[in-house]
């Protein structure tokens, strides 16, 4: 053995080949462990549509319902509140929801009020910054965080502000308007969240 000439090329090849095969093995073994962190089948299954009556929501009031464990804001907006929406356009990031927020609502809610019926706002109450639930500050009066406040949402986490259609103001950390979930009216006073209206894509 001692007298045999060492074939360095062969040795390098074998070392490299062993390392590569071993590396593939390590990566393959890592896959199930990494995949085990994904939402489980049970977590994925818990996402049925929710039906909610609107009959008892007074004008100017907000109701929060849970859908897929997410808070959904349902607001019966007053005439005054609706009238302020167009006045805020110049202070918003994406007033028409067709720029950075184009994907934040179904097509049938891509309008000034971001809703199917103007007075009824149905919106996932999750701040688009880091996922907190913004507070409903519906009254149109000066607030410590904004002397020209015209009603809307104020996030306690990083102080992002939205108007009463969930459209984000300029100069706050949140980048997009809040998301509108798929929903439709079963009758005049009942909505179902999680299902598009018939005929809508």
């Amino acid at each position, binding site marked *: 053995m001692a007298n045999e000439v060492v074939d360095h090329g062969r040795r390098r090849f074998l070392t490299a080949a062993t390392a590569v095969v071993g590396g593939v093995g390590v990566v393959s073994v890592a896959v199930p462990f990494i995949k085990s962190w994904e939402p489980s089948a049970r*977590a994925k299954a818990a996402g049925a549509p929710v039906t909610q009556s609107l009959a008892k929501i007074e004008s100017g009031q907000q109701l929060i319902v849970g859908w897929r464990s997410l808070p959904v804001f349902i607001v019966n907006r007053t005439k005054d509140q609706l009238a302020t929406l167009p006045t805020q356009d110049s202070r918003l990031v994406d007033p028409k929801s067709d720029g950075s927020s184009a994907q934040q609502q179904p097509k049938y809610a891509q309008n000034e009020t971001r809703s199917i019926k103007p007075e009824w706002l149905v919106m996932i109450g999750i701040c688009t910054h880091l996922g907190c639930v913004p507070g409903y500050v519906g009254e149109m009066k000066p607030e410590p965080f904004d002397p020209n406040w015209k009603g809307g949402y104020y996030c*306690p986490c*990083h102080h992002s502000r939205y108007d009463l259609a969930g459209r984000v103001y300029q100069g706050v*950390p949140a980048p997009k308007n809040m998301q509108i979930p798929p929903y439709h009216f079963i009758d005049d006073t009942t909505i179902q969240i999680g299902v598009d209206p018939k005929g809508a894509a």
Partner: protein
Amino acid sequence: MANVFTNIGDWVGDRAPGLAPFYRKHMTEYYAPKNFNLWYYFGVLAIVVLVNQILTGIFLTMNYNPSAAGAFDSVQYIMRDVEWGWLIRYMHSTGASLFFVVVFLHMFRGLMYGSYKKPREMVWLLGMLIFLVLMAEAFMGYVLPWGNMSFWGAKVIISLFGTIPVIGSTLVEWIMGDFLPADATLNRFFALHVIALPIVLLLLVVLHIFALHEVGSNNPDGVDIKHGPKGNRWDATKPADGVPFHPYYTVHDLVGIGFLLLIAAFIIFFAPTFGGWFLEHDNSIMANNLVTPAEIKPVWYFTPFYAIVRMIPSLFGTAVWGVLAMFGAIAVLFLFPWFDRGQVKSIRYRGTGYKVALGVFVIAFLGLGAVGAGITAEVIPEWFGNVDLTTWENAFGRLMTLLYFGFFAFLWAYTHFGWEKTKPVPDRVTMHD
């Protein structure tokens, strides 16, 4: 009797010949500079707190129930029904905050005396890794009681990763194992908090100390005792200005440990929540995924970094900038040895510019902490009356952010272009013989 012990000692020594030399290298023959001052207590105090966290943590797991349904109740059970459970939990929660107190002071010591400089860069890097793991460990531990602040803290911190373009939302679901923090999240955080991260932390602490013992300790004069005169009372070849770590510094450190325990005991017995700073009031309410607490803020030790996220607005339709800045604020700390090109280590002999800049850096860090903790939101209306709070707070917070990062730019320019006027450094530590 003495014979029996000698025999046992010899028996072990024969079978583990490296043990006694190892002990001597790190304890009785590790020569530390004799001029250590108060600032040199915090390393050993961090170890004491770490031991406390591990010990109390083990006992907490014995009664804690890691599930979304049971976690909150099991913490209340520990507090009310388990014999001395309240003490063990308060020791753990107070220890978490004190850990950051001593680590922040320990790090500041490094900045003052240039302990991160050649040849101790590796010590600094390992220390920064410890800091990083410690933050992850603290965050996950904070989630475990499953109060409302735990829940929303988890949501916000995990959502930081959601701002990464393209893969963000998938990554967030992967971390949470659900579409919001839930049972799966709590369970994996428990596993990481009690097993994975403590193992990493312990390994890093050992490496940190080994790396230190390779190059030797720095001191308040910033002169290397290895380059000074040789020969001391114990060894003619060892530094004249060094004393054996054991028994000199072990005994010396006992005094500091005594003070730490005194302060800790005071907090544990008289102010365990520390007025909402160590344990937040909103966390006494069970996690509720539909209601965000009115004032959400992290525990005090994260507030400076949290403020940076808040101060940076979204640009180009993404909120990733604030998150990048926050991680950047930690990343620049890693790079201290390379920002600072100055040859003089200790602040005692450095230029006035460095002293001022370090002071400004501390003010920026504390100022950001005040923004993150909501102190500015309280005092601005109080001091300045009815002003636009958002504008004022943003102006202040952004100035502090600028100063924080500006410190590193200044430090590099100041030392790179030779603007620093240093004082002469003595040949050996100023406190000898």
